[in-house]
């Protein structure tokens, strides 16, 4: 009985097989090098590096039913977010200021507020200036794909390595339920016909980018009852065309966002539905589960929001010697790399002890069942966040085979600091609901009140592994659970997971 979903689903050569926590280890060296410190592509890099976005491209050329165009493009940000629109010149100034001050920022993305390629001049101008002035920053762009084929060659000129295309379907009948219209050849095109054109353009753009050696990530929004089953086909199709990562994001639809879906009462997927689908697609290609829909902002990376340091008037007065900054950035990146190597070795040891655990159990009838655990972290690959400060939890699955990252779950911050926690109980209940399938939550510290409520809900709080690498700590907790005998399988046939 193999409980490791990745190897279970077959195709070890093409999907991340083995016990490494980093799902990119299967990629060819050249691609690996490109993505190794890209926070959007590498689970491990996500802990150490960050990207930032600049909002230079407001217009959009299609309508998605999950988007309210009052706000930023929902394909990339969460609904209801409004960014301050920047001119390309100002955006470049801001990026350089942030890069000089936050060396972890390695990637600059343009993802909106609309579609960066709908009216591409502003996006391309920003990229052109940046590849000239800050050659150590990688560039990426996200698009709905409609205008992509026309600008692929232009994009390649500007040294862009990564493109994200949001592809929600490859079947126009499904598409017609997601996109009511597109703007195409100076006319509005509606319904199935619109979806047909959009899909053709997306697929063509994907092919053209792959041909030119540009990495392509595909984002899909999981919309229950619309494209849930269909996304498996999308995953297969985009993999066949050479996309190297597929990221399935949950639909977020609330009436207060004013989107079509929100107003019409279309529901989003449950954590379980999302996870099941991600598992189903995992056999087809590397899946990205750490995506937090762009919350890995450089300006917020270290847990505290540093946005106020980079307001327009402050940037205008900053004098930046980027040559000097670039040298300092290179030093810090080298330090980070040394740290990551050290952590990988430690994690490797944890896996060794897990597999010896399995060997020791060979004689028993059933293996211990896998367990989900939640972790509070601000980054760096270690457990370093107070339970009450966590805005999201990273969920991992521990089994006798490995520790595997499952996904990030957002929660509302329940402790605003101080003793003004009026709503503490209800929000805490919400967190408990979000983590209800987890059996332990690892954090640096936790208060008495949440401690007892978590315990009552069957989630064991654990503050004993503060500042330890995540995978290692989880392996240790899992070992304790195994040792205590609490994970012995009840039935004869062990199941992967039950909620």
């Amino acid at each position: 009985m193999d409980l490791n979903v990745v190897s279970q689903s077959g195709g070890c050569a093409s999907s991340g097989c083995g016990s490494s926590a980093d799902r990119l280890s299967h990629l060819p060296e050249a691609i690996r090098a490109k993505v190794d410190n890209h926070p959007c592509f590498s689970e491990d890099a996500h802990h150490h590096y960050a990207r930032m976005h600049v909002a230079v491209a407001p217009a959009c050329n299609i309508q998605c039913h999950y988007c309210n165009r009052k706000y930023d493009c929902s394909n990339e940000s969460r609904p209801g977010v409004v960014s301050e629109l920047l001119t390309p010149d100002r955006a470049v100034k801001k990026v350089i200021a942030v890069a000089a001050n936050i060396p972890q920022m390695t990637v600059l993305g343009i993802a909106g507020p609309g579609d960066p390629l709908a009216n591409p001049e502003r996006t391309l101008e920003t990229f052109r200036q940046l590849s000239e002035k800050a050659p150590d920053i990688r560039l990426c762009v996200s698009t709905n794909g409609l205008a992509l084929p026309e600008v692929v060659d232009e994009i390649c000129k500007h040294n862009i390595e990564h493109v994200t295309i949001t592809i929600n379907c490859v079947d126009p009948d499904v598409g017609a339920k997601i996109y009511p219209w597109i703007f195409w050849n100076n006319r509005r095109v509606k319904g199935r016909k619109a979806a047909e054109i959009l899909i053709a353009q997306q697929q063509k753009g994907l092919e053209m980018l792959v041909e030119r050696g540009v990495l392509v990530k595909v984002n899909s929004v999981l919309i229950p009852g619309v494209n849930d089953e269909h996304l498996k086909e999308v995953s297969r199709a985009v993999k066949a065309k050479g996309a190297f990562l597929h990221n399935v994001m949950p639909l977020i639809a609330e009436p207060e966002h004013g989107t079509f879906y929100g107003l019409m009462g279309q529901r989003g997927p449950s954590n379980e539905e999302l996870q099941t689908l991600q598992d189903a697609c995992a056999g087809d290609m590397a899946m990205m589960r750490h995506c937090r829909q762009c919350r890995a902002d450089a300006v917020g990376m270290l847990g505290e929001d540093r946005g106020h340091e980079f307001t327009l008037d402050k940037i205008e007065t900053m004098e930046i010697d980027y040559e000097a900054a670039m040298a300092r950035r290179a030093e810090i990146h080298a330090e980070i790399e040394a740290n990551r190597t050290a952590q990988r070795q430690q994690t490797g040891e944890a896996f060794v002890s897990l597999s010896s655990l399995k060997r020791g159990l060979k004689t028993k009838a059933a293996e211990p069942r896998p367990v989900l655990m939640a972790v509070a972290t601000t980054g760096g690959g270690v457990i370093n966040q107070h339970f009450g400060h966590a805005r999201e939890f990273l969920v991992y699955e521990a089994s006798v085979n490995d520790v595997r990252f499952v996904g990030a779950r957002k929660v509302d911050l329940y402790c605003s600091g101080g003793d003004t926690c009026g709503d503490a109980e209800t929000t805490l209940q919400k967190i408990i609901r979000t983590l209800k399938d987890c059996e332990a939550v690892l954090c640096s510290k936790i208060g008495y009140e949440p401690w007892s409520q978590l315990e009552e809900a069957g989630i064991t709080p654990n503050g004993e592994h503060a500042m330890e690498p995540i995978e290692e700590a989880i392996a240790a907790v899992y070992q304790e659970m195994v040792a205590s005998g609490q994970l012995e399988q009840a039935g004869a046939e062990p199941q992967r997971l039950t909620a």
Partner: protein
Amino acid sequence: MAFKIVEGCVNCWACEPLCPSQAIFEAKPHFMIDAKKCTECEGEYADAQCASICPIEGVILDGLGVPVNPPGSLTGIPPERLAAARAEIQAR
């Protein structure tokens, strides 16, 4: 004759770069069309560009003051089908 942007415009910028007459400009509380410049896209395009990309129903009026994108025209769901469509979507 000229087109007009009215209340409800969400300032999404989609129309502005498309106007062949540079008649559209950013303003408060919403984008506006300079009536002296707007040509209704005559001789340039078969359809008025602003009204062909605007994502909001009812916010662009033609020369006669009639909304170019009436209710239901952009969602694809005519008002009389709205309740049924909502029920369908909620059953998903």
